[in-house]
């Protein structure tokens, strides 16, 4: 009897956790080399090996699930728990930046002029591009739900269409936000206002790029018939992440752009 009699996935030995750990070492020491010794080779090597690790590790997961059939219902449950816990950890990550923002803005010090926004800071108008950005992300939440329903109904074309629109909205948000960054009359070094603004919105923007990338991978997987109408956890994970990114923006918009102006 050589077949497994349990529903779990006993993975093949893999080199990617090791290369991932080393790439983290190279990235962190690379940052130190860049900050203190004006050298970017370690950082570049770190980022390259990090990308190589991510590509090969996730490629292997697709092989294990879609091609080898290891993703039983039980395994999928574990993957769901994993993604949920990861998103919760990201919520805590952003909570830190929101804590910093509220700490400084609820009781502005005399050095800031005792007011928020601080004296001399001209905030962005929340009813201009930031409001458009809000509409763009909310719309993308609708289109990704459309994509999910199309997928569950076996409507291949609609799924591809609506997922593509979602990705394009994500790219549109990123471009709009980049143009806003060029237009701000304040910089990251403009006191605590600049710091909290750019740290919070900057990390959010990074997450939009990560989410758009995840969705793009799902797009290519759908093109290649990887998903079925009843089994498509990769897409669901991407959708959960995308909704999380949308909700973080809503908090950013209300707190920093609207209340904070």
């Amino acid at each position, binding site marked *: 009897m050589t077949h497994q009699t349990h529903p779990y996935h006993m*993975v*093949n*030995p*893999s*080199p*990617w956790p*090791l*290369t991932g750990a*080393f*790439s983290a*070492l*190279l990235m962190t*020491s*690379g940052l130190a*080399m860049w900050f*203190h*010794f004006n050298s970017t*080779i*370690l950082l570049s*090597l*770190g980022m*390259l*090996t990090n990308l*190589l*690790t991510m590509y*090969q590790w996730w490629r*292997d997961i697709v*092989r*294990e699930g*879609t*091609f*080898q*059939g290891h993703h039983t219902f039980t395994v999928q449950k574990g993957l769901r728990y994993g993604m949920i816990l990861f998103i919760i950890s990201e919520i805590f990550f952003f909570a830190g930046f929101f804590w910093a923002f509220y700490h400084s803005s609820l009781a502005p010090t005399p050095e800031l002029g005792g007011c928020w926004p601080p004296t001399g800071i001209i905030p962005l108008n929340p009813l201009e591009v930031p409001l458009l950005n809000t509409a763009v992300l909310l719309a993308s939440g609708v289109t990704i739900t459309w994509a999910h329903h199309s997928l569950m109904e076996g*409507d*291949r*074309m*609609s799924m591809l269409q609506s997922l593509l629109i979602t990705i394009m909205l994500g790219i549109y948000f990123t471009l709009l936000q980049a143009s806003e960054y060029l237009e701000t009359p304040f910089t990251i070094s403009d006191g605590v206002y600049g710091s909290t603004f750019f740290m919070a919105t900057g990390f959010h923007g990074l997450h939009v790029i990560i989410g758009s990338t995840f969705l793009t991978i799902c797009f290519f997987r759908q*093109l*290649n*018939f*990887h998903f079925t109408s009843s089994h498509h956890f990769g897409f669901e994970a991407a959708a959960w992440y995308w909704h999380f990114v949308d909700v973080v923006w809503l908090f950013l918009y209300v707190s920093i752009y609207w209340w904070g102006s």
Partner: protein
Amino acid sequence: MLRNLLGLRQIAQRTISTASRRHFENKVPEKQKLFQEDDGIPVHLKGGVADAILYRLTMVLTVGGTAYAIYQLAVASFPKKQD
């Protein structure tokens, strides 16, 4: 009129899906056969020669990079005295 619109939608979908079949064929069954081959090769190398090349490249860059990082750490630990 609504029935005509629905009919038009169905025709459009059928046309588009026929066109897509020309560009994208379902190659998943082939992949399933390749990756379920009972040859003992681990999943990270099972795709073929390209897998092995990419693995070796990643390892060389990672291990080499780590050696370089430790070297830089050693250099940074003993700064040259300024006269």
